[in-house]
């Protein structure tokens, strides 16, 4: 068990190395000088040279890269080109926003998606199933941008019930609309998946045995079928959590939430290379970390899974 996780963690190292190298290379093949895009085209050559030396950009690329990796390992992701703020501190300040949004979204997804999927599976072939399938397919097909703008219009502008953007005093009301956008999207996907998985499980022999024993439908579905169906469902939820925690660029941008997603996006547009690299590395760590943790979770929900 622990040996498996040690090996799993060791395999993460080359991936993170690849991610950092990828971002580094990507932004050095970009035409145009990152310094010029910061100080403006009309800065004097002396100023440019000075800033370049200050940022360490005058050194050869491999050395720049090595310096960056060395600092990153100590938790120092460097400073922004644009405003000289510490990237590690910015991420620390912004991650809670993304975390809260993720948890609210996930709660909405679990509360809507799984029951809808199970309900549809149990009523397979009826109008309930057909209706739920259509609603969830529409949910899967609705672009986040459109849903975000539509909700802003309906609840913010038309009805005037909820704030349209920003986090204001940080109350849940500011998180509700973006969480609904992300949550319903995941819920739609969850519903489709849960339905398929539960149907597959309900088709198995041990369920027939349970029925033959005369157990009630409720006991069969909730005690027997659902437990086995949980494994793929939890896998998918974990995947969703991973992508939520790295921040949703679109949703955070539309609702002007200062999270990790909008932070990364702004940096990409501003060509703020240190921020982009830091944010990408942070996202990769979170994403891969969630997946490693999930592998551990399987052992808890499924005693058949053993790692050795």
């Amino acid at each position, binding site marked *: 068990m622990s040996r498996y996780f040690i090996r799993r963690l060791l395999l993460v190292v080359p991936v993170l190395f690849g991610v950092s190298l990828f971002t580094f290379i990507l932004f050095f093949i970009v035409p145009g000088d990152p310094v010029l895009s910061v100080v403006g085209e009309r800065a004097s050559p002396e100023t440019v040279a000075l800033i370049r030396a200050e940022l360490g950009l005058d050194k050869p690329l491999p050395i720049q890269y090595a310096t960056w990796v060395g600092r990153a390992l100590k938790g120092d992701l460097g400073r922004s080109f644009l405003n000289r703020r510490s990237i590690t501190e910015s991420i620390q300040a912004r991650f809670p926003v993304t975390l809260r949004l993720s948890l609210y979204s996930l709660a909405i997804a679990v509360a809507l998606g799984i029951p809808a999927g199970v309900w549809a599976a149990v009523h397979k072939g009826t109008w309930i199933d057909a209706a739920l399938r259509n609603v969830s397919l529409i949910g899967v097909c609705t672009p986040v*941008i*459109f849903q975000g703008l539509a909700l802003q219009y309906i609840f913010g*502008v038309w009805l005037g019930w909820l704030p349209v953007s920003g986090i204001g005093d940080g109350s849940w009301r500011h998180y509700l609309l973006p969480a609904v956008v992300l949550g319903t999207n995941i819920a739609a996907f969850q519903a489709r998946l849960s339905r398929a998985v539960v149907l597959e499980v309900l088709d198995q022999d041990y369920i027939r045995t349970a029925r033959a024993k005369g157990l009630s439908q409720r006991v069969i579905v909730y005690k027997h079928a659902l437990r086995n169906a949980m494994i793929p469902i939890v896998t998918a939820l974990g995947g969703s959590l991973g992508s939520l925690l790295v921040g949703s*660029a*679109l949703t955070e941008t539309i609702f002007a939430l200062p999270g990790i997603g909008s932070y990364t996006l702004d940096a*990409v547009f501003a060509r703020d290379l240190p921020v982009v690299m830091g944010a990408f590395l942070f996202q990769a760590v979170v994403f891969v970390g969630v997946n490693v943790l999930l592998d551990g979770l*399987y052992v808890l929900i499924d005693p058949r899974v053993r790692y050795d």
Partner: protein
Amino acid sequence: MTARKPSSNLMTATETAAAGNVYLGETQLALAWRRLRRDRVAMAGLVLVLFLSLVAIFAPWLAPYDPVTDYNLRNRLQPPSKEHWLGTDASGRDVFSRIVHGARISLTVGLTSRVVTLVLGVGLGALAGYFAGTWVDMLVMRLSEVVDALPSLFMAIAIAVAIGPGIYTVFIALGFVGWADMCRLIRGQVLTIREEQFVEAARAIGCSTGRIVFRHILPQVTAPIIVSLTMGIAGAIMAETALSFLGLGAQPPTPTWGSMMNYARQYIYIAPHLVFAPGVAILITVYAFNLLGDGLRDALDPRTKT
């Protein structure tokens, strides 16, 4: 390793025959088509996809106005009317005409970026699968893990910013992002199939590796490729919208659904139809491809009862 469900939507010829599903004299494709035709929902998806393709192809003839040059600032931000079915935008251009022309971009991007994905994913996946266990496999798999460790939208955005906005950027960025899934799918299938007897037989009569991979193994994985392609188009259309929304796609005044929503944002208080028109267009298109994809998955799966 991880408790992932094996993707087993493909069976070997022997297994299919054993399941009693083979109709003599009928190819697998004809069989799948017969199944698909009976699936009313999937056929609705197919009809919708064909309809949207026709709209895209004949856009210049279908649109009542030119999407770019027919502007009229005196007639801007009008609600839907008899002259302008979906109203006019901030420059007084006909929204309906722009939506019709936008279908061209969306469908082209969907198809082209998936072709890029297909070439990369199938090529690398087949390579890794056939040479499983060697350094080639190792390299390809590590590469796909790196691609997977980054959220795909961020990566597409980063690539798009790096090579500059534009329609070709979208093809490359989206094509490059999706290949890892396809690669793993193909690798897994090839790994199973390469142990089959007919591959051994091909090797025994002296077929070259290239011939074995392309003529003997790859035709066996057409079904998952077709399904993944159809679903992928839907995903790519959504992603194109996102890139255009962020200003990284085709540049104005080219009409794309994403950029239309982007510009509509600031007028959401006075002209909400500008947001809803492209939004519903995307929704319908993605919905159609998903219906078709779901149906194709069932039709191409030999386990489905005929």
